[in-house]
């Protein structure tokens, strides 16, 4: 029953801390109110300028259809290609469309005119997306065959009909919550006790290892769960976005991830001497796991060696699973293998954490 006293102690310390209670309140608000707007890879507001060397009715038609597209911001005409390139160089525009001199003649003759698109591709995604859209508009105007085909194509976007980026990101943000609440906070706490010397006092008491560790983890799990609940409520209130699948599955995925992060934090704090070290090492792994988890970019586009790392990356399983539940409304069966993988990885880490904590060296 020593566990009870230890957990009580942790809660008292958290409450007395000048910083933690505020963090627990402010964090979900920031995550839900600011992050969805920021974590947005949507490509919007691409600025386009046109060099019209033909100056005919048909070419003006093309310009109009660009102007009409709400995807682009039309920034006017440029006299020459050189002038337009200069505009790209000074970042006044992102893309330039050059309509050739014989545009109308070629079109009426049945020949295909060659339209040039020059895009600033420093940001590869932006360049590619802009190019694809602009090409589509041009092709549809220039090539009646393709225009015909395009009119026959219909697209049904499942799960996220309005292609709302926030729907895609909000569930994944829960992964960040777990990471901070269950990974960083217990690590700082334990290294702090090491530096203060109180851990030595605990080590000469008969407290079993697992009790000490559990007492460190349980408060943060509870806090993390609380924060997740607040986040879910906020997401419903602010964006009207709610889970499509059953809510208990969200928690089923969150629990093993919490166990993973806290064990991981413990392992690092067991091997670190100072807070700076612990934070730096933690941060290193966090950044790697986050980037390779598919949270921001599709894992399937990765080269094979990078894709292979996702098999041991618990963040990948969580992000995958939570999106299936939250967005696609998947059931237990759909995420069974993610849950199992998470459980497997986190129990290995938990064992390592308990073994690496030495009461007697």
């Amino acid at each position, binding site marked *: 029953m020593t566990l009870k006293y230890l957990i009580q102690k942790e809660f008292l310390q958290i409450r007395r801390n000048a910083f933690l209670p505020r963090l627990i309140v402010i964090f979900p608000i920031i995550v839900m109110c600011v992050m969805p707007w920021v974590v947005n890879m949507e490509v919007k507001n691409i600025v386009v300028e046109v060099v019209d060397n033909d100056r005919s009715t048909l070419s003006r038609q093309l310009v109009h259809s660009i102007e009409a597209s709400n995807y682009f911001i039309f920034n006017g005409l440029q006299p020459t290609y050189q002038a337009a390139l200069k505009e790209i160089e000074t970042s006044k525009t992102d893309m330039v469309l050059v309509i050739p001199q014989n545009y109308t003649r070629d079109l009426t003759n049945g020949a295909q*005119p060659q339209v040039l698109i020059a895009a*600033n591709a420093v940001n590869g995604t932006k360049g590619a997306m802009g190019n694809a859209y602009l090409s589509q508009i041009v092709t549809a105007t*220039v090539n009646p065959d393709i225009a015909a085909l395009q009119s026959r194509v219909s697209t049904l976007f499942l799960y996220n009909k309005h292609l709302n980026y926030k729907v895609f990101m909000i569930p994944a943000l829960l992964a960040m919550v777990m990471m901070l609440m269950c990974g960083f906070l217990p690590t700082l706490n334990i290294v702090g006790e090491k530096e203060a010397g109180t851990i030595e006092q605990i080590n000469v008491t008969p407290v079993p290892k697992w009790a000490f560790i559990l007492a460190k983890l349980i408060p943060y799990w509870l806090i993390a769960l609380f924060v997740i609940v607040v986040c879910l409520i906020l997401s419903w209130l602010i964006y009207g976005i709610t889970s499509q699948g059953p809510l208990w599955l969200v928690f089923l995925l969150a629990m093993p991830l919490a166990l993973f992060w806290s064990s991981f934090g413990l392992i690092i704090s067991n091997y670190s001497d100072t807070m700076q070290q612990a934070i730096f090492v933690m941060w290193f792994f966090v950044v790697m796991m986050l980037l390779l988890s598919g949270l921001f970019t599709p894992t399937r586009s990765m080269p094979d060696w990078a894709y292979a790392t996702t098999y041991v990356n618990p963040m990948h399983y969580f992000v995958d699973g939570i999106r299936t539940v939250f967005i696609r409304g998947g059931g237990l069966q759909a995420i069974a293998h993610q849950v199992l993988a998470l459980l497997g990885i986190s129990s290995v880490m938990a064992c390592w954490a308990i073994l690496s904590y030495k009461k007697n060296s």
Partner: protein
Amino acid sequence: MKQFISFIIKEARHIVRDKRTMLILFGMPIVLMLIFGFAITTDVRNVRTIVVTSSLDHLTHQAVDRLAASEYFTITATAPTPQDAERLIRSQKADQAIVFSPDFASRRGGIQFIVDGADPNMAQQWTNYATAIISGSDASPVNSKMLYNPQMKSAYNFVPAIMGMLLMLVCAMMTSISIVREKEKGTMEVLLVSPVKPLMIIIAKAVPYLVLAFVILTTILLMGRYVLDVPLQGSIVWIYLVSTIYIVLALSLGLLISNIATSQLMALLMSAMVLLVPIVMLSGMLFPVESMPRVLQWISAIVPPRYYIEAMRKLMIMGVGIGEVLREVAILTAMTVALLAVSLLKFKTRLE
């Protein structure tokens, strides 16, 4: 002068002796560069596609063959009905389905894409690519030219961003922690009471991190150039000069934090909360500033790395002259001067 040098040597020893932190400091840029350079892409690749068709006429066949042949799509299955396809997508066995109507060949019937729309960006790109492939006109009327980054590598975009983040981290976070550590351990009192001028203490603290920052900067540039094939279009001199301004800015931020923070933990949390989070979120490093709501754009206007990253993208990747980044450099310089002045004025030569 002798005091100054021995001070710097002492500071350098602190850095070099902490092997794990050193490992992270140099491991971080290398790993980040590799991840951004090779692992992370938003390219359309290996999209698991289901073909739904009832009649395998010639035209449909041709379209499917073209899809299968492309590197973008992998045909994983054929399903008899759209419902079956949808079920496969829901259970995460496929990403999209292409439904050919039975009379597709007769040019009257159409095509329907059923796409997993969870990731809006990718979903749209998949349909674009698929449409282009199915329409199959080799002679595209469009001649595209991807300026500065013909292969559209994400590394081009991220190398300047990594520089912005790591330089800030090394300079601001490490400097503030190292100053606060001396405060916490009581050695700062001795340093202050010693004949060494307070300004010397600060400079001596900053110099090793300045050097470290340049080493990291050079590592990133070399890796970018020779491992990731990111060309260095602009003038190296200007790249280093602008970086120097930025590094000084980061150092003064670190100094400012060390004035406020009373413990190492506080310095750590402040650098993480006040520096790292806004940098990653609002500097345009990962997420484009122009897609954010107005309010956040305003906030991002006071995040220094935003200007540095922008300036570096222009100088390094686009290879424009210094004239084109004057605005960014001017803002950075103004910020540096202001921060440096504030942090030097606020530096306490006494304990209160």
